[in-house]
Structures are given as structure tokens and as C-alpha cells.
């Protein structure tokens, strides 16, 4: 349809339509080379060789073979109790964190708090708290309040406040302005504007974040137990120490089933509370 002369003419008019400039192409290749060097360098520096991975895999194979068949062992009541404790810890920690995160989220949202200095400081506090992992909080709380689930609940609570507050602040910032304007125009004050203009828009998102965190915290509650912060983790750690891999396998299956059930329940709850927009 179009001859070579046409191609040349179009290329002259819109060179960018026919691919990047030589400069852009060179930059692209250079970027790719740097990235590859980075990946290779990391492997080298950490001493990761195919041989070591292979040996590790065969060790893992031995453990997997010892796991079959999974067995609840003699102290299965303790396992069940530990699991229940983990779920309770995750629920309590997430619930309290989600509650506290709502006002903090509003404080950190640029379209709510216009005082830049205040918002900036709130945001930096979130960042600081997020910089410290849940496990570190757990270790600190075990020293502070002693072994047991309270330390775990506090660790989940502290670590999640910051993350949830940040997510909530971002959700609030994407809320539509017109709905707020509608409430203000009807004579509502600042708080009423937040309550009726913004909250209905972001509540579904806040709820799904909180439910997702609950599920994810049930999983991470296993780790908290290892450092003595209560829950199923303690049971796992003990059984790994004495190499009862079949009982470890049983606990893992129990955890997968529990998380699956929570996932199902929270999906159903989300559906009920949020409803489907038609």
C-alpha cells in the first residue's frame, strides 16, 4: 500500500514513531547491562552457587520424606490450643490496629489535613514504625511484658498501625471531592464532611485491608511464637528442635486449613458488608 518513499517521508515527520533515538537505545542497553551486573554481583557476593542450592534441595527432600505421613502426635490438644491462640492474637491485634489506624489515616491524608508540617510529621512517624519489623517488636515486647500472647498481640498491633494508617491515608486521598462538596454545600461542618463525604467512599477499602491483614497475621503469628510471643509458633519450634517432622507437617496442614477458612469467611463478610455495586 505505501511504498518505501512513503515510509521515509513518515519517518522524517515522526522519527519517534519508528523506535527510540540512538541515544535512548544506548541508555536502554546500558540500563539493562547495569541491572544484569547487579543481579550477578548479588549472587556472587552472597556465595550462592548451583551446587549449594542442589545440596540444600536434597536436604529438604529428606525432611519432606520424614513429614509423610503427618501425625498429630500425643500432645494434639496443645497444638489445637496453640492454633486457637494464634487466631485470637491475630484478631485482637489487627482489630485494635485497624481502629486506631482510621483517625491516623485521616491525619495523614493530604486532602484532609492541609497543614503540611503536621501531615509531614505524622507520615514520617508511620514510616519510622514501618521500618521496624513485627518480629523486632515481638522481641522487644517479650522483654517488656514477658512471654506469652500479650507480647504477640502488642507486636501485631504496633507493626500494623503504621502500615494500615498509610494504606488508609492513601485510600482517603483518592476519594472523590465532589461528594465532600455535596455534604459541605448542604451545611455540614468539617467533621460531617469527613463522616458522610469521605468515610462511605473509603470504608469498604478499609474493611478489606483489615480483613486481609487479619488473615496474613494469622500466618505470621506462627513466627511470633518462635520468639516466645505465644501461639502455634512455639509448638512448631519445639517439634523442629526434636525433629518430629511428621507433627510439624500436621501443624502446617492445620495452619493452611485455618487460613483458608478465614479467607473464605472474610470474603463472605466483605461481600455482605460492602455489597456488589451494579
Amino acid at each position, binding site marked *: 500500500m505505501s511504498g518505501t518513499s512513503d*515510509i521515509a517521508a*513518515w*519517518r522524517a*515527520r515522526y522519527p*519517534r*514513531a*519508528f523506535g527510540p533515538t540512538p541515544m535512548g537505545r544506548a541508555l536502554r542497553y546500558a540500563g539493562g547491562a547495569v541491572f544484569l551486573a547487579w543481579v550477578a554481583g548479588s549472587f556472587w557476593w552472597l556465595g550462592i552457587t548451583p551446587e549449594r542450592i542442589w545440596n540444600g534441595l536434597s536436604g529438604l527432600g529428606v525432611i519432606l520424606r520424614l513429614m509423610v505421613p503427618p501425625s498429630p502426635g500425643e500432645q494434639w490438644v496443645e497444638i489445637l490450643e496453640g492454633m486457637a491462640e494464634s487466631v485470637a492474637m491475630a484478631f485482637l491485634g489487627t482489630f485494635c490496629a485497624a481502629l486506631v489506624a482510621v483517625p491516623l489515616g485521616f491525619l495523614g491524608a493530604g486532602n484532609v489535613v492541609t497543614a503540611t508540617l503536621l501531615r509531614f510529621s505524622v507520615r514520617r512517624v508511620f514510616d519510622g514504625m514501618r521500618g521496624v519489623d513485627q518480629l523486632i517488636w515481638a522481641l522487644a515486647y517479650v522483654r517488656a511484658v514477658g512471654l506469652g500472647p500479650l507480647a504477640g498481640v502488642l507486636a501485631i498491633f504496633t507493626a500494623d498501625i503504621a502500615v494500615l494508617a498509610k494504606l488508609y491515608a492513601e485510600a482517603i486521598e483518592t476519594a472523590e471531592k465532589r461528594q465532600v462538596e455535596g455534604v459541605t454545600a448542604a451545611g455540614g461542618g468539617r467533621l460531617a464532611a469527613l463522616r458522610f463525604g469521605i468515610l462511605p467512599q473509603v470504608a469498604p477499602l478499609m474493611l478489606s485491608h483489615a480483613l486481609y491483614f487479619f488473615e496474613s497475621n494469622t500466618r505470621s503469628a506462627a513466627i511470633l511464637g518462635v520468639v516466645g510471643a505465644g501461639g502455634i509458633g512455639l509448638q512448631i519450634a519445639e517439634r523442629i528442635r526434636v525433629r518430629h517432622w511428621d507433627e510439624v507437617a500436621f501443624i502446617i496442614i492445620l495452619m493452611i486449613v485455618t487460613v483458608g477458612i478465614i479467607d473464605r469467611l472474610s470474603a463472605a463478610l466483605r461481600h455482605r458488608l460492602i455489597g456488589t455495586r451494579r
Partner: protein
Amino acid sequence: MLELQGLTRRFGARTAVSAVTLAIPAGQMVGVIGRSGAGKSTLLRMINRLTEPSEGRIVADGRDVTAMRGRALRGWRAECAMIFQQFNLVQRLDVLTNVLLGRLYHRPTISSLFKRFTAEERAQALATLDRFDLAEQALQRADTLSGGQQQRVAIARALMQKPRIMLADEPIASLDPRNATVVMEALARVNREDGLTVIVNLHHLDTARRYCDRIIAMDAGRVVFDGPPAELTAERVRDVYGVAEDEFHEGAETPALVA
């Protein structure tokens, strides 16, 4: 020649399109009119096989379209290009890439996944955009364009498929009157200059009368009128729909087209 033989589509208990039989010769500009829910969209989507027919056959130049699968089906879709009410451009890609998507069937899969299109295809895409006064916008993201511009990009994408039929599903329902005219003119040009068969769903009788050689009116999934625009008089509309033309338009959800 495109033939529809007893084409039927049911959604659960509801019959959207009921035993439609039509023969459309090559190069015709056909307007399909009817109120919302009359089955116009389903009919068009079945021709492109975006919706599967429950019963009946589609035959194009002796080939059974309803039996096509895999690459043959993709070939058929390239051959009968589709224009949508909401344009269906990929918003985050630039206009040029959107237009080049029309070449997907004609290119090896792997190279097209890496956005490797030949210089000739790129020149062709620019030339096609230029036909609709959009070459300047080729490197902008699709979501920066107005609705009327986006619909013209969609037509350019459709033309890159080298189609023989163009199906347009309410192409002007989301546009303001001025842009609607521009887009209808573009479709008419495609019909006149490129000799494509154009089948266009419309809400408005006036638009159909103005641009089409043949009007097909649908109601509750059935064809209730099929003939040249001159025959679809105000009396016929009243016979067919049981309401006057003005009321027919009230059933439509779009503002009247000022041509």
C-alpha cells in the same frame, strides 16, 4: 456476501436475538435500529463471535463462520472489524500502538508481544491516523484524547486489520453531536472509499436514514423491518413499534443527533 441463517441467542430464559435471517451483500452500509434491549448489540457481537450464537449459522462467502475455531476464528475477527460504544482502546498505551494492535493477526505472536512492528506498518498506521486528522497525536497516550478522537483512533485500528466488514456497535452513543457527525462521516468514508461493508447499530432513525443504504429495525430480538430508508416512513415506524417516531426516541437513552 454475509448470510445469517436463523441466528438465535438466549441468556438464560431470555431470548435476546430470535431466529434472525439476513443476507448482506458486500459493500452495503446497513443501519440496525431499535430501542435498548432490542438485541442489536447481541446480533453484532455474534457476527464477530464475541458472543456465541445459541442456534443458527453465520456464513461469509460460503465459509461457515459459526464452526470456526483457533486461528481461523482470529482470522475472521480480523476480517470483520469491531467498533465499540466505549471505544475499547487500551488507555495506557499510546495512540500509535493502539492502531498497530490492528496488525496482531497478521504478525507472529512473539514479535508483536515485544511491540516489534515493521517500519512499513508504522508508516501505514501514521497514514491511517492522518486520514482522520490524528497523526499529530500518534505518540500521546490514548486516554489524553477526547471521545470523538478516541473513536476515530478505534476506526484507524479497525482499518489496520484490513477488514472486509466493519461492525460498529453504537459508535456515537457516547459522543456529543459534533463528534458524532465526524465519526459517522468517517464510517461512511470507509464504506465509500475502501468499499467495506459497514453494519452499524444506531439509536436514532435520523442518523440511519442519513447515512445508510439499508435499514434493519429490530424489536424484542426480531427483525421487524428491512428495506431502504425511503420505505421507513413515519407510518411504518408507528406500525412497527406501535408508537410515533418521537416516542420511539424517548425510549432511547441518548440525546438527539443534530446532523
